[in-house]
């Protein structure tokens, strides 16, 4: 009975069927359409299409703007999540619901809304232009703004969820050690909810990377400055669906590689 060979694993760790079956079904559901794209992809012409300079240009622009938009969302969104989860003010529930507005707004309408506020004749944009000479539409900065507008709520809401699930007694312990609320946030709260922040940042980055409607409406579509991959894909879809699939696959491949290589590193820390 010694089972000498089995010493090194204690728990057989087989996931229960009742979880495994829906999990695999869910996975298949999310991944199968990708398989459809792969099957349809015009593999023979793929190298030629990839070599076209506008692909690299659009890809670079997409990655850069999505990353900047994510950074901006982290900067503004994490404090906002903290405010919603850790302070109590009248109307907090309403404010929290308002944060989800950009999620629900059809992206094109979101773009129109951004134009109404930040456009040349917008409420704030008007003043930005006359005071600072800044115009956002039709610029790369505009792309970042549109992407951040659409993607930030994902970050805010998932970080808020993580903050609510965190054990607040560690924050109390930090306060008794003389830590100001800012220090508590920076040195205790944030590191403890890091997996939640990373999850939110991933959502935010991916959403920004795939963002189309608000970007084209607010920032327009010009090669080199505002034509991101999704815009290139959409236009390719109009004339040569094959090319659209190739572009989508490029975007996917790059984002999957980036996410697969980065995430475990961030997540494993705490």
């Amino acid at each position, binding site marked *: 009975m010694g089972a000498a060979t089995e010493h090194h694993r204690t728990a057989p760790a087989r996931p229960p069927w009742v979880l495994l079956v829906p999990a695999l079904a869910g996975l298949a559901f999310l991944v199968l359409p990708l398989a459809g794209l792969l099957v349809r992809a015009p593999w023979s012409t793929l190298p030629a299409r990839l070599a076209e300079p506008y692909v690299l240009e659009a890809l670079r622009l997409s990655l850069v703007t999505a990353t900047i938009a994510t950074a901006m969302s982290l900067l503004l969104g994490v404090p906002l999540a903290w405010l919603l989860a850790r302070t109590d003010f009248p109307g907090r529930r309403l404010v929290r619901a308002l944060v989800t507005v950009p999620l629900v707004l059809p992206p094109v309408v979101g773009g129109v809304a951004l134009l109404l506020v930040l456009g040349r004749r917008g409420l704030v944009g008007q003043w930005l232009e006359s005071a600072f000479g800044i115009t956002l539409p039709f610029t790369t900065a505009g792309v970042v703004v549109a992407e951040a507008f659409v993607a930030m709520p994902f970050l805010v809401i998932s970080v808020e969820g993580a903050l609510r699930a965190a054990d607040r*007694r*560690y924050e*109390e*312990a*930090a*306060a*008794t*050690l*003389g*830590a*100001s*609320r800012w*220090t*508590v946030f920076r*040195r*205790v709260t944030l*590191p*403890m909810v*890091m997996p939640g922040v990373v999850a939110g940042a991933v959502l935010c980055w991916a959403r920004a990377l795939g963002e189309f409607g608000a970007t084209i409406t607010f920032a327009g579509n010009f090669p080199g400055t505002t034509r991101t991959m999704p815009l290139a894909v959409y236009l390719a879809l109009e004339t040569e669906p094959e090319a659209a699939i190739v572009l989508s696959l490029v975007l996917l491949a790059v984002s999957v590689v980036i996410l697969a290589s980065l995430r475990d590193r961030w997540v494993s*820390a*705490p």
Partner: protein
Amino acid sequence: MTLHARLVVTRPAFTLDLDLDVAAGEVVALLGPNGAGKTTALRALAGLVPLSEGEIVLDGHPMHTLAPEQRPIGMVFQDYLLFPHLSALDNVAFGPRCQGASKAEARRTAAALLERVGLADRAAARPRQLSGGQAQRVALARALAVRPDLLLLDEPLAALDAHTRLGVRSELRRHLADFGGATVLVTHDPLDAMVLADRLVVIEDGAIVQQGAPAEVARHPRTDYVARLVGLNLYRGLADGPRVKVGELLISTSERLEGAAFVAFPPAAVALYRSRPDGSPRNLWEARIDGIERHGDNVRVHLEGPVTAFADITPAALAELDLAPGQTIWASVKATETHAYPA
């Protein structure tokens, strides 16, 4: 660094109402049964639980209006609450960093403190890699690191082994003697309380039931809880000269008192007999054995009868008397072994 506090905390099923004064350099031990409100009192002092009423004045300055981080306190929590994402060293360095020390400086302070609690070699470990006792020692070091004016310790030695406990206890004493601040210490261990505290405050159900110097409290317990804590049998009765009437039983004592009084005697002073003895002890009653347990080298017998009492006897005596739970037996205490004092 004198602390003067009146702490009132109201909860649905529990009310804490406590006057607490701690002089500069004094160590007050807060004792009491589970759920008495000791942790609640410490948390109120730290500002983690709002006062329903009352005030906290440290050295003449009201402190109850300050946020926890503005209070000059150090606190050790009952379940440690070490930051899981920081190493032991960085946990201890956290407080000094918050007080503006440079990183190197804070780490130096922390390393010295870890050294003192005997954990220099575990400095790099994460809390989850520490054993329970190690974690508590790190928590202690973390609280000491902020050089507080008011030190709040919730069972700081509970998880330590006998050996370490001795060392940390002396270290703690030395540290407490060093700084002029006030210390409030929660403990269940009478020995810790006796060794570390200048004064004991016993609370039950949110209110103070007894306070005083350790020896005084030990000698004159005023509630069952305190009596058990210091290992005495305790009764409250009506004294009439050299006798105290406790329920049905008249207990002869060596003191002469009048009116409400306590009588106490140690379990070792109780002698047991299978049949009614015919001797000098004046206090004799029939009792039923409710339980028997080992107690150190001796055996502790729980007695039910006109009064509830514990008797400590040797294992040899146990074997000889052939006692078993449920049996009826005679118990006696010499009047000279009892101690009576006004209630």
